[in-house]
């Protein structure tokens, strides 16, 4: 008994149908996969922020000051030995940044309300000359910033940590760690 070669051959219709089936399955699975990846990224970013802020706060409680700032994606030197082994400030979908900001209480330095007339600006001495010699309380804040292209990660972080502690700007979200110890300038 011989079989016809036509019955065993694969036609272009068979190939096209197989490709269409694969494309359909991929299209159905894609949204769920994308959502799962986003949820993982958000959870990982939240965990990383909590880790960094917790370690930095512990460092501040021990030493009385926040760690020195570091470039985006780089682990601050003071925190390197305190973070979990292998902890990185560079994740797949986001990057961490540690900052330290010095601020002054508005009440300690009231805003100038009178501007000099035109042409007299250079003749006037800077207002802060005398204040530079006085002691004014300067507070130091710590900040953990997450840089992410996906705004949904930033929105999730803002919702998780609250608008009273954090804010969103452009492609980054920043958690402000409050001052507890006051330095003098």
């Amino acid at each position, binding site marked *: 008994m011989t079989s016809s070669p036509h019955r065993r051959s694969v036609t*272009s219709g068979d190939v096209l149908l197989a490709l269409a089936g694969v494309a359909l399955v991929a299209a159905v699975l894609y949204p769920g996969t994308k959502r799962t990846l986003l949820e993982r990224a958000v959870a990982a970013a939240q965990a990383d922020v909590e880790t960094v802020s917790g370690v930095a706060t512990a460092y501040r409680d021990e030493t009385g000051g926040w760690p020195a700032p570091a470039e985006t994606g780089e682990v601050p030197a003071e925190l390197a030995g305190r973070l979990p082994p292998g902890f990185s400030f560079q994740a797949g979908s986001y990057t961490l940044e540690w900052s*330290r*900001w010095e601020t002054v209480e508005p009440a300690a330095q009231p805003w100038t309300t*009178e*501007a000099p007339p035109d042409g007299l600006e250079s003749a006037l001495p800077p207002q802060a000359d005398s204040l530079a010699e006085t002691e004014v309380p300067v507070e130091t804040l710590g900040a953990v910033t997450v840089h992410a292209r996906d705004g949904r990660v930033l929105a999730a972080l803002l919702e998780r940590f609250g608008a009273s502690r954090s804010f969103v700007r452009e492609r980054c979200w920043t958690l402000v760690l409050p001052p507890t110890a006051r330095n003098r300038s």
Partner: protein
Amino acid sequence: MTDTRPDPPVHRISRVEDRERLLAEALAHAEAQEAHYKVLPADEPEHGRWKTPLAVLLLLVAAWIALTPPRWMAGADAPRPTAGERDRGLRAAIWIQARQVEVFRLREGRLPEHLSELPVQMPGLTLVRSNNRVYQIRGRLADGEILVFDSAQPSPAFVASAPLLSAEGTP
């Protein structure tokens, strides 16, 4: 004495009639081969013709799902930061930057020429000095408008960002 060696092939087909005959045979053979593989078995049209339209239909459905996935399949889209949240973030950034300008002024006895003189510069903000004492910090809101912080008359909207900078602002 005759030469018994066969003629070289070029001699055998050198005649025009021979070449035309060989060409016709070759063409006929090629057509027969093509027809042999081209013709479907008797039952093939009934079983195979639906495959291509179905494949095209499936591809169209796949493209529709990939480009605009229905909500029941993709789920609710996660929210992105609203314009109000971004504007509030801009005010907070300007407020923090202004306080850093004050620290600089206290330490250096002058206003900075640019925000780059500060230890930390927030992106997207510019410093405009009105004179030796008064300055403005400007940034762009989500709707494109310019938000101005004037050190002489700070808007209460900026002061609303103060909880960020104090221990009271933490839960």
